[in-house]
């Protein structure tokens, strides 16, 4: 058995022991099932959500807001980052705003977006977008400012102009920086969507969470947390594969 397999078996065993202990403690009454329902009950809730199909409209709504926010945030972050890095005027205007947005917990904007944009998709998309935009803006802006000058001069001495510099140095560098932050951006987009739904909405995993909390349904709350964690982990795996594909030269 390889070291990786040994590690995986150990982790699986540790998880099983933890679940078994949790189940036992809950069943013998040492843990109050009202607050800490046993894993079997949480598993049952997950099964019901999936089997009845109740989960899918909510998961779909959250995924739509998260993916749309991720896409718009990437486009805005890259565009504004490039503009600020290449134009001192744009940098002067944008940098203080972005620093301010970066300094605050941006989820506090959620109520404002609900007031402005309503409880539909737009307010969730806006929150996910702003979370991603600020992250990607700084990745691109700082990345371009700190681009390896030796590579720039290499291109210049080979006779390359701005177009060649963009194609050979800036765009590959920006791709590396963006992909380096991509997994965090996926997490941020999901955070924005779920928090937006939690504040005010009529569907989505955040809405379900809010419902579970207001009805003191701990089993549903834990089940939803597990579903969100699983979904984000799947997205992380996809993001990692994409990163390894786009930045193949880094993983050789």
């Amino acid at each position: 058995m390889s070291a990786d397999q040994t590690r995986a078996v150990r982790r699986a065993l540790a998880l099983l022991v933890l679940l078994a202990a949790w189940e036992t403690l809950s069943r013998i009454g040492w843990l109050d099932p009202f607050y800490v329902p046993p894993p079997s009950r949480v598993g049952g809730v997950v099964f019901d959500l999936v089997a009845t199909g109740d989960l899918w409209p909510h998961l779909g709504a959250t995924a739509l807001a998260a993916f749309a926010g991720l896409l718009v945030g990437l486009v805005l972050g890259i565009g504004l980052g490039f503009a600020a890095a290449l134009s001192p005027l744009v940098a002067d205007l944008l940098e203080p705003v972005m620093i301010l947005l970066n300094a605050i917990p941006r989820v506090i904007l959620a109520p404002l977006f609900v007031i402005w944009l309503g409880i539909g998709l737009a307010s969730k998309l806006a929150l996910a977008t702003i979370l991603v935009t600020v992250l990607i803006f700084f990745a691109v802006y700082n990345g371009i400012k700190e681009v390896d000058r030796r590579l720039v001069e290499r291109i210049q001495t080979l006779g390359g102009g701005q177009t060649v510099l963009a194609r050979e140095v800036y765009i590959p560098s920006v791709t590396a920086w963006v992909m380096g932050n991509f997994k965090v951006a996926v997490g941020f987009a999901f955070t924005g969507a779920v928090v937006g739904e939690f504040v005010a909405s009529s569907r989505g995993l955040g809405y379900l969470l809010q419902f579970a909390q207001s009805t003191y349904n701990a089993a549903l709350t834990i089940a939803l947390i597990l579903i969100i964690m699983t979904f984000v982990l799947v997205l992380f795996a996809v993001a990692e594969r994409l990163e390894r594909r786009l930045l193949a030269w880094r993983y050789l």
Partner: protein
Amino acid sequence: MLRVRGLTVGYGGEPVLDGIDLDLESGHFASLIGPSGSGKTSILRVVTNLLQPEHGAIELDVNTREIGFLFQDDALLPWRTVRQNVTLGLRIRGAASGDADTQAEHWLTRLGLEGFGDRYPGQLSGGQRKRVAIAQVLALRPKLLLMDEPFASLDAIVRTRITQELLDWVEREHLTVLLVTHDLEEAIGVSDEVHVLSHGPRATIRARHSIDIPRPRNVLQVRRHPDFGPLLQTLWDELADEPPEKGTAT
């Protein structure tokens, strides 16, 4: 081939270089030596338009596209394969993709990197990366080759081997070369003339020495030539004469 006239270079404060005059004849191999901070690299950067001088002029008998610049660092694009790095300059100058690839293979083979075309720079050793950088520059068939301590980071054996390969090529093609180096033995071993810069700021060329050791040269055996030892002593004395470093390093 290259005439530098009254070159003064500064970085906002006191000039690093002050009134440098330098002539490099076609087919000659010249070295620039001097203490750290004396502005050796700045001269090369002005010749390649990477740096604007405060005063002075650069006169060239070749087009700037016929100048090859070998940097101290290999400065290869990490996201491009070896072949793509070697063909970069050719593609910038409009070579067709097929022709550029053929030339890249030719140069990689010449430099002992046959079969390495699909690898990335991160998969190569320091010496191999340096060979790729050399291939990238020589593939452009420069008439004037500028080198800024190109082999400083390599170990002695690799350094000697690559220096010899490059020297063989320069002698065979009668390239004009201006080399910046800290290594006095290297300067004497490969050059036809050595220019000694004084300490910066306001560095000037304080001495010029012709080296009449016949070519072709072997970088190891050249040290046994009767002129080598005395010239090394002279250069050493000239540099040891310089006051301790206190200025800007460039």
